[in-house]
């Protein structure tokens, strides 16, 4: 069977996918592998088995201690009231009901949802449009330049980015308002009004992160062969007579073929946007009012400023449930399109 990707890639994925089942087969067939002497092989296998555990030890122990135990602890803690100083008391679902009724928590979850929807839509739209434009015919050096330019913000720290963006969006001496004044738009109070702050947080976040979706789309586009477009042209989808056909070509050929990439890109973008913290924390500290307070900021504040560790855990559990629900939806949707391993 002729393959799409380099043939080397396939068997590897195949093996990876079936790893649960192949582990046993390997173990069985591995014996008859290299050496003939039965006794020696069993010895080697035995040797290999404990060696494997030594190799695994640093990662597995570390993960157990710093990820698995904390997950369990977090869930347990969500049912207790605890301020670190006095002993924890079991309160059942009280934390959850309090958290769900807390107006600040409600607003912050609502903010997070609005943020995710707007930021992810902007991020994906921008990334897709730019990726399509970059992949069309142009000199190689120019393509490299654009790719690097769009990728660049990803390597910066969200904290430093937020610091300089705060100055750029300053109402009086910010460069953004200065540019706007050139086209006759009066100074916008970016960071002092709820709407302005929310807009800045979204813009700064998208500015920094669209490059990641862009890279994914570039990868996805690179796997669509030219023949598809030629076939489409013959079918009349792209009559190639005027500029408008470019749009139709993308609408009818590129977009459907890019759907697996779009799915992955959107889910990754959603999961990371749900966890936004650095930008709103440095840009606005959640204000003015609660207008840019996000779910993670509330976890941070209730745990490390108010010492309500149980409530913080409850909020964390709720956030995780939302993320898991989205991820589960992704797995169901993408089972047919995407490889995992």
């Amino acid at each position, binding site marked *: 069977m002729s393959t799409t990707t380099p043939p080397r890639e396939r068997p590897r994925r195949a093996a990876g996918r079936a790893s649960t089942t192949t582990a046993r087969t390997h173990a069985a067939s591995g014996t008859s*592998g290299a050496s003939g002497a039965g006794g020696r092989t069993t010895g080697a296998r035995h040797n290999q088995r404990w060696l494997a555990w030594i190799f695994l030890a640093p990662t597995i122990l570390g993960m157990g201690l710093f990820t698995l135990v904390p997950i369990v602890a977090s869930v347990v803690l969500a049912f207790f009231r605890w301020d670190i100083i006095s002993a924890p008391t079991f309160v059942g679902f009280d934390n959850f009901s309090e958290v769900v009724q807390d107006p600040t928590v409600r607003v912050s979850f609502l903010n997070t949802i609005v943020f995710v929807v707007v930021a992810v839509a902007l991020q994906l739209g921008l990334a897709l449009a730019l990726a399509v434009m970059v992949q069309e015919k142009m000199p190689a050096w120019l393509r490299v330049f654009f790719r690097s330019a769009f990728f660049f913000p990803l390597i910066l720290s969200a904290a430093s980015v937020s610091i300089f963006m705060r100055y750029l969006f300053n109402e009086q001496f910010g*460069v953004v308002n200065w540019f706007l004044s050139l086209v006759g738009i009066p100074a916008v109070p970016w960071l002092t009004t709820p709407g302005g702050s929310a807009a800045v947080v979204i813009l700064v976040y998208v500015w920094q992160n669209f490059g990641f979706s862009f890279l994914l789309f570039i990868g996805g586009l690179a796997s669509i062969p030219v023949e598809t477009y030629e076939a489409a042209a013959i079918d009349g989808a792209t009559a190639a007579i005027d*500029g408008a056909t470019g749009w139709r070509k993308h609408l009818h050929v590129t977009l459907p073929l890019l759907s697996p990439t779009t799915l992955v890109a959107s889910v990754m973008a959603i999961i990371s946007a749900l966890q936004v913290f650095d930008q709103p924390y440095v840009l606005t500290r959640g204000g003015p009012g609660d207008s840019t307070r996000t779910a993670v900021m509330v976890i941070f504040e209730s745990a490390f400023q108010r010492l309500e560790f149980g409530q913080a855990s409850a909020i964390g559990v709720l956030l995780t449930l939302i993320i898991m629900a989205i991820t589960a939806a992704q797995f169901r949707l993408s089972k047919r399109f995407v490889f995992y391993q």
Partner: protein
Amino acid sequence: MTTTTDHGLAGHSPRLSQGLPITTPNRKKFNGSFAVRTLLLLLAAALTLGPVLWTLSTSLRSPSESFKLPPSFIPWNPDFTSYGEVFKQLNIFLLVLNSALVTGVIAVGQMVSAALTGYAFAHLKFRGRGALFSIVLATMMVPVQVTIVPVFMLIRGMGLSDTLLALILPAIPTAFGTFLMRQYFMGLPAELAEAASIDGASPWRTFRSVYAPLAMPGMAIVGILAFNFHWNEFFRPLILTISEQNFTLPLGLVSLQGNLGTGSISVVLAGVVLSMIPALVVFIFGQRALQDGLTAGTGK
């Protein structure tokens, strides 16, 4: 066999049985759209690079001139007083040292531990390998914010509160690095191990002298990704460190901004520029590796 080649699209896309790479769909005729497209792309590039260039140029103005509008993007006569000022107001050597220490140890730790774990999952046989690997992968989905409260307690319990070790230890076990290294090792033939064992090499020796050297490029990707991520990390250091002598760069910068209030922009921006230099170096030398690493496992 079929299941691996067919990712569900084969039904409606002839491309999947063709397997030819594309970049440029063939458009033979004159393109007025080329100009429009390039202009739009240039505008987008200006928007992504502009703020950074503005930061650089403003940091090179004298503190008193840093508010001036219109902004001069080209610093004709650069003034380095702001940089001197950063060193005065912020113990930047200590911050850089802390950041470098934390980031360096995490990066090396991840490279080594991920290589070991990745090799075990790829080439060693042991009971429960598949299940264990699934668990490792699953931990990738858990956001750091959810485990931070227990991790904070754990760190306190271990007596590591407000130390750099508190930042380092939890960051070394890496699911993503393990995943990357496993992929990498699976790309190396198992025959190498057979050949080595015929030559009498122990399994450890086989890893040490045959596979590990070959996996260096993969380890470099893990290291570069770890460096970029942890150099920029803000959330964990904010919670796990308390005293300024244990701050990392991003924390120091944010505190510098707080100290100055609306004081001098150029000083804060000089600090920002200083903090970007290592990221820039990584960007220049590791761009390809970073891009490949970031998009690895996304089914691109």
